[in-house]
């Protein structure tokens, strides 16, 4: 019964924060416009009313400062969620993220823990220009000490965000704004989704497609079309990139012997590169053909809609890459 309920991803994320803030008084939320406005996309709507301005805190535009403050709070007994409006502003806080958030636990020999979750909403393809279009996910995957989460459905978003908030390690949690209004089944009963467990969003025997964020939906569309041509594609959604469920990916390749990796980042040193490298090292003997990457073009994102369309991965590009393997 309760599994029938459908809500959208923004609502799912809001529920995750609300439930965790009710459960644990040390959970706080900080960021620009998260309080009075409830977030520029409404994801934190109502939280200020329920939890008050001490725990739901609008910040000045000081990303370096309030991410650092989130870390300082995390190492002294709070369990903060910090929102960085869009990933394009994460570079303003990269120093605190890479040199403190990711490393304090290791560098202090385990004396400090950093139970901080940073949430940020990808707005790639919105037409706001190249500095309002990046995910920067690969930077965080590259940085030892951070966990990295990339949900594609309301169900995953809620379960993973709750896990992120409870995780004692620092977590980078990437939301995708264009998925916020997508609805999907989300149980009313509490649930958590463990990190490091990929989800096979569609089963198949002929081809493995690994994709993240909104590109999981493109991959599913591509798989539908490919099926018409007799190609049964399996769509694997890693859901968390650190830890990465290599096993599920490799097992899929062992079955299908072919792989296309789809990435919402420029290809160079991107997420697809990492997955390709893992497969090329650990499942080489099972491969019947090259490892295909479908990534965004290695260019800044332009504003003109026809150019944006050309630069981003989509169903058609996935199909084209897939067909090259047959």
């Amino acid at each position, binding site marked *: 019964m309760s599994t029938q309920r459908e809500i959208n991803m923004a609502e799912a994320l809001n529920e995750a924060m609300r439930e965790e803030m009710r459960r644990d008084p040390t959970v706080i939320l900080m960021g*620009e*416009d998260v309080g*009075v*406005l*409830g977030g*520029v996309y409404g994801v934190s709507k109502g939280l200020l009313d329920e939890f008050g301005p001490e725990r739901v805190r*609008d*910040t*000045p*535009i*000081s*990303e*370096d*400062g309030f991410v650092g403050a989130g870390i300082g709070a995390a190492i002294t007994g709070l369990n903060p969620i910090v929102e960085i409006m869009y990933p*394009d*502003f994460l570079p*303003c806080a990269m120093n605190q993220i890479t040199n403190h958030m990711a490393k304090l636990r290791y560098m202090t020999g385990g004396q400090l823990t950093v139970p901080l979750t940073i949430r940020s909403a990808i707005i790639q393809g*919105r*037409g*706001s*220009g*190249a*500095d*309002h279009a990046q995910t920067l996910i690969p930077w965080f995957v590259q940085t030892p000490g951070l966990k990295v989460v990339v949900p594609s459905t309301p169900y995953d978003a809620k379960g993973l965000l709750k896990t992120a908030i409870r995780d004692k390690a620092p977590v980078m949690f990437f939301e995708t704004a264009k998925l916020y209004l997508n609805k999907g089944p989300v149980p009313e009963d509490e649930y958590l989704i463990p990190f490091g467990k990929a989800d096979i969003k569609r089963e198949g025997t002929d081809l493995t497609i690994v994709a993240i964020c909104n590109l999981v939906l493109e991959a599913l569309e591509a798989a539908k079309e490919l099926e018409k041509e007799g190609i049964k594609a399996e769509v694997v959604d890693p859901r968390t990139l650190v830890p990465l469920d290599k096993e599920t990916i490799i097992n899929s390749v062992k079955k299908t012997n072919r792989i296309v990796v789809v990435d919402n980042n420029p290809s160079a040193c991107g997420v697809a590169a990492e997955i390709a490298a893992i497969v090329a090292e650990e499942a080489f003997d099972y491969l019947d053909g090259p490892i295909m990457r479908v990534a965004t*073009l*290695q*260019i*800044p994102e*332009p*504003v*003109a*809609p*026809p*150019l*944006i369309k*050309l*630069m981003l991965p989509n169903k058609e590009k996935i199909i084209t890459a897939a067909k090259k393997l047959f």
Partner: protein
Amino acid sequence: MEKGLHNEISNEKLVSLYREMVRVRLFDDKMGEFYARGLCPGTLHLSTGQEAVAVGVCANLTKEDLVTSTHRAHAHTVAKGTPMNVTAAEILGKVTGCCRGRGGTMHLSWPEVGMLYSSSIVGAGAPLAVGAALSATLRKTNQVIASFFGDGAANTGGFHESLNLASIWKLPVVFVCENNLYAISVSVKRSTSVKDIAVRAKAYNMPGFAIDGNDVIEVYKTARIAVERARKGEGPTLIEAKTYRHHGHYYGDPGTAYRTKEEVEEWKKGDPIVRHRKYLLERTIASEEQLNNIDKEVEEEVAEAEKFAIDSEFPGPEELERFVF
């Protein structure tokens, strides 16, 4: 502000300040209309109500002088003399736009009239202005750089580093804070530790002026002091112009989740264009007819830009990978 330091402003100049504000206003109105018609990629930030700041400052600059702007870029772009047609086309993402349809509303640039760049990263334009000023100094061009930013930007680290750099190197920068009291939904009272952002000038050993940003004459006069200082090699100045945006943060934001209707109405009464118009008429510096003519001329200018932008094409695939390096 130090009074009486300057000669009276010529009537011609006073009228041209009116014209420039109307240009900014009507251009922005048109862009809002474009947005409502679904023609604009991304989101749109208008300066309606804040025109006096861009206009009062830019009226002191030569074509060679440079401006850095923000996500709220139209006003500075138009006031600095960028043709409306390439600006409008850019906002629609057309290939005829000033940035060939790659930058859009928040990243306007037209260096040939000194409109250097608009950075949509809050606070990030200031270091660019410092660098441009360093360049001007080393190349001995005698240029002045005006760097516009919001109240929200004054809390970024880049602001601090930039003002310190400009001060120790005595660079010709005029830092112009458009304090419209809000950064999206966050009131300056909740975000900022000082009542007057201009006070922060003390932390960098430079002059600071907190002024009425809706009085174009006060803006003009204050900017003149700052520009002259800069031009003479006496270093940077911080101007805080208090103003207000009539629209929400972006076009379509009702702007009432964090502001009362009364507050908005109260500020609208202080509309800088209405005020300046009244000033000109009361002192018979210009006649009603003259000003109406200006309005009409500007409407025509905007209409031409509209036609140009609408008729222009989007960039084709051959544009996609140009200028990456």
